[in-house]
């Protein structure tokens, strides 16, 4: 069971949506995610909805002797959404997004090379007040993931969400991965220091449109200053027309931003978009 649940293609900085069916699959993914983090010394946070945190911790500890120690040292945290970011009874998207900074700072202070977060999102069917802000939140946190320290897995139970709602949530993640799929996520977005800017790898289309838009819109705020910023497209294998238009608009609107490394085909598409939008 654990074998089929490995998300082997993920790296630090990835933020993926995992639509799944079945309680066993959910707990299996969580468990393999936790063990993978412990293998590499990362801090790991499990945020549950359908599972009781104490029962889950006990089950994990039964399979892996490192679990109890990691819990005791605070390297592993298993808690429920209801007792953490939903404790007020509503989803406060802005507050939850802002809360990431403290969590990341603490993980760095504790000396962990990275932070991994896995969350059961099955509360988000619409009943909790503030749920309408979840797509904004899921897109916005990509700016945090682009920093390259955190990796995140959002578990969406197929049986819980209507297809339309699930599709809206999916578009806020750079990648959607099936349980057991060893592939990398469809799109990777990383802030870079040499040259300063953003590197895009993979494929940008409607399945990650909102994620890309949030990272592009936040680029100058996330990399403050008035120095030039380079958006490196050399790893971008496919961009749909909307992604190309978002790139062209960012380069036009944000002073100092330039696009670099586009393949010949992508450069042709960017030119067409520039003409149409002239």
């Amino acid at each position, binding site marked *: 069971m654990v074998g089929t649940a490995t998300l082997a293609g993920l790296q630090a900085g990835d933020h993926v949506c995992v639509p799944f069916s079945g309680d066993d699959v959910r707990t299996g993914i969580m468990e393999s995610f936790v063990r993978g983090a412990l293998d590499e010394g990362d801090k790991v946070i499990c945020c549950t909805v359908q599972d009781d945190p104490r029962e889950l911790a006990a089950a994990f500890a039964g399979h892996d002797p490192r679990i109890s120690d990691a819990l005791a040292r605070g390297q592993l945290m298993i808690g429920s959404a209801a007792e953490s970011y939903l404790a007020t009874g509503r989803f406060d998207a802005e507050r939850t997004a802002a809360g990431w900074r403290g969590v990341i700072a603490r993980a760095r202070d504790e000396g962990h090379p990275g932070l991994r977060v896995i969350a059961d999102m099955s509360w988000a069917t619409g009943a909790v007040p503030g749920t309408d802000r979840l797509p904004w939140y899921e897109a916005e946190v990509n700016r945090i993931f682009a920093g390259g320290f955190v990796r995140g897995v959002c578990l969406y139970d197929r049986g819980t969400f209507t297809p339309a709602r699930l599709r809206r949530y999916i578009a806020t993640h750079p990648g959607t991965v099936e349980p057991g799929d060893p592939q990398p996520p469809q799109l990777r977005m990383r802030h870079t220091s040499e040259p300063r800017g953003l590197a895009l790898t993979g494929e940008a289309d409607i399945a990650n449109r909102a994620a890309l838009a949030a990272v592009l819109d936040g680029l100058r705020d996330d990399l403050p200053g008035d120095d030039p910023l380079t958006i490196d497209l050399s790893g971008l294998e*496919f961009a*749909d027309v*909307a992604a190309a238009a978002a790139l062209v608009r960012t380069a036009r609107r944000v002073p100092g931003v330039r696009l670099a490394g586009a393949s010949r085909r992508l450069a042709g598409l960017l030119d067409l978009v520039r*003409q149409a*939008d002239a």
Partner: protein
Amino acid sequence: MRAGAPAGHRGFFHEAALYHSDEEFLAIVTPFVEEGLAAGEPVVAAFGPRRQALLRDRLDGTDGTGGAVDYLAGEEHYARPATAIRRYRELLAEHVAAGAAQIRIAGEIPHLGAAGPWDWWGRYEAACNHAYDDFPLWGLCMYDMRVTPPDALEQVRCTHPFLATAAGHHPNPDFADPADFLRGRPSTWRDPLERTRPRLLLVDPMPAEVRAAVDAAGAHGGVDQADVRGLMLAANEVVTNAIVHGVPPVEVRVWTAERRILVQVSDAGPGPRDPLVGLRPVRSATGGLGLWIAHQTCAYVDLRQEHGRFTVRLVAGRPET
């Protein structure tokens, strides 16, 4: 001040000439070119090699002014309607920026019965009434009555507000409002492949699945990889439109033949409202940009409402006429 028949006309003066012989062709095009050059107007001629040689010989043989004509290779220029519109608009903008009071373009779509279906050129002739109307353009579209099929001729008659003959220039009583024409136009082209079972049918796919399907079809061979990639982008855009703006179920069918790939995408919605969609450039924020780009990356694009579904056909490789 615009010289000739469009004097006092604003925007695009769109004229068709139906000729029956080489002599008649020259009797209409030669004065059009010579009077333009005499008035100091930029003159463009976009014909296939035979017509172009004919015109060159006549102009060089008379007063030697033919060298001032900007000759475009017709086959290449008129390969795809949206590309022709884009390139003409660039050219027109340059001439206007340089102070031209009028630009004259004489051209002939060298496709009749030769390469690809005529059908989207009927859309072109209607759409360009809008697409060029922000320029002081006098466009003379030449049609050889010896090779123009009747259904194409019917569309030519409806899409040109003016007609030229060797004797002069007249308003065309058959001209129809382009939007009305495009909405009411019976579109009859079918790829013969559609009579066979598709290689693949996808229902409500994500665009990535459709791209993979086109890629797999391209690996089948016979179609240039650059054209396969162009079809992949176009199919991606059309499926994305269907998901975002259409009504499910979205159905995608893929056929392959020796030298072409056909992708058909349909949804249960009414399709885009703008009948000129795809042929003229639009701002990305207003929608329609994907279809405009699809029109430039595919060998053929057909849009229509049929059996209560909006259906787009995209072809890479050599379209069947």
